[in-house]
């Protein structure tokens, strides 16, 4: 049994793979997208050690290097592996989801600010001076303020 346990002078590829598996389980138990990179590094290191046995200090150093590499590579590629591209971009987009909608001015825009009705709520709007009741187009959104421009021909 003692031969199976890793020691400071001898670490086998199997030890790294077991460590990878344990880290993966930890990731499932406590998701934080942290252990998974270490797990990947462990598996990769296990392969490396399987091919060419290295000294233990070198293995440990390589483990550190591989972990960092795994994080950076993951950051670069995992996001693009998601099915259907960036699905999450549809959510929590704040006011920018309103861009392109035509809305009615409820409080005349004077000195650059007024209010417009969007759905069943009112938003602060900035844009050219516009009388109440006019139709305007939302061109952009900044925090809680919508930038609007007039639609030609809706008011005289």
């Amino acid at each position, binding site marked *: 049994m003692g031969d199976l346990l890793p020691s*400071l002078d001898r670490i086998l590829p199997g030890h790294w793979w077991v460590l990878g598996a344990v880290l993966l389980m930890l990731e499932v138990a406590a998701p*934080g*997208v*942290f252990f998974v*990179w*270490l797990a990947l590094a462990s598996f990769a290191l296990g392969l490396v050690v399987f091919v060419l046995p290295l000294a*233990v*200090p070198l293995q*440990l*150093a390589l*483990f*550190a*290097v591989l*972990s*960092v590499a795994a*994080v*950076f590579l*993951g*950051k670069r590629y*995992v*996001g693009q592996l998601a099915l259907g591209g960036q699905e*999450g971009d549809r*959510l*929590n987009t*704040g*006011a920018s989801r309103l861009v392109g909608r035509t809305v009615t001015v409820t409080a005349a825009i004077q000195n650059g600010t007024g*209010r417009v009705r969007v759905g*069943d*709520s*009112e*938003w*602060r709007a900035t844009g050219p001076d516009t009388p109440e009741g006019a139709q305007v187009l939302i061109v952009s959104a900044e*925090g*809680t*303020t919508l930038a609007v421009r007039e639609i030609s021909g809706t008011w005289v």
Partner: protein
Amino acid sequence: MGPLIVIVVLVLLVLITLLAGVKSVPQGYEWTQERFGKYQRSLKPGLNLIIPYIDKIGRRVNMMEQVLDVPSQEVITQDNALITVDGVVFYQVLDSAKASYEVRHLEQATLNLTMTNIRTVMGGMTLDDLLSNRDSINARLLAVVDEATEPWGVKVTRIEVKDIKPPADLVASMGRQMKAEREKRANILDAEGFRQAAILKAEGEKQAEILSAEGRRQAAFLNAEAREREAAAEAEATRMVSEAIASGNAQAINYFIAQRYVDALKDIATAPNQKTLILPIEATSILGSLQGIAEVAKEAFGGTKR
């Protein structure tokens, strides 16, 4: 052994560094990143890398629309009714940086702002207006609170007053008032009905009177006309008779009279009361009459010779 310890420490350091530098933000949240305590940027959902030891996560801001329950509070209306009001506020953080650093306790601030504004708005209205104009109350509250929370990067999407509870005795008198209103209406309707019925009855009687008078008048007219016609006919008959007499013989009249006379006698004779038979007193006059009849007969049959 020495280099080994160094290596192990190094590995641990790398692990801790990774722990500090790799941040995955869940969907629906934004985390603010501070460099030496100063706000740097907001981390969007997904995998984010920050510089370990220099950058720290400041606040974890919820970017979803949230609901705040406005607890019940007592408000005095313009007409001095003490009512209990509660409500609900829906708001959404649109700017995580402002929501983190422009205001200290965002929820508390929003809540207090809403509560004080509920008091302000409702204190300027009468109870009846309150109960019937919830839409306008909501709109006014929304306008004020939304304007006030704008610097905090928060959009208040809606404020609803949930429950307006007047005190129990007021509710009871409201009920009584309603009942009285309905009873008043019912009584008025009853009276209206009686009035209408009386009018209709009188109308009917009037019509009947008029119609019967009309009938009587028409009948009188017709009667008079009939009498007139009768008289006219009588006169005509008399005229014709007298004309006939004038142009013919007076004996013709005698014939008629004799005929009547005999008829009358026959009537008397065949009367059911046969115990008495009145005979003409004077036989001579009967004879005379017979004489007259004979004369008439002679006249009529052109004088038969005896």
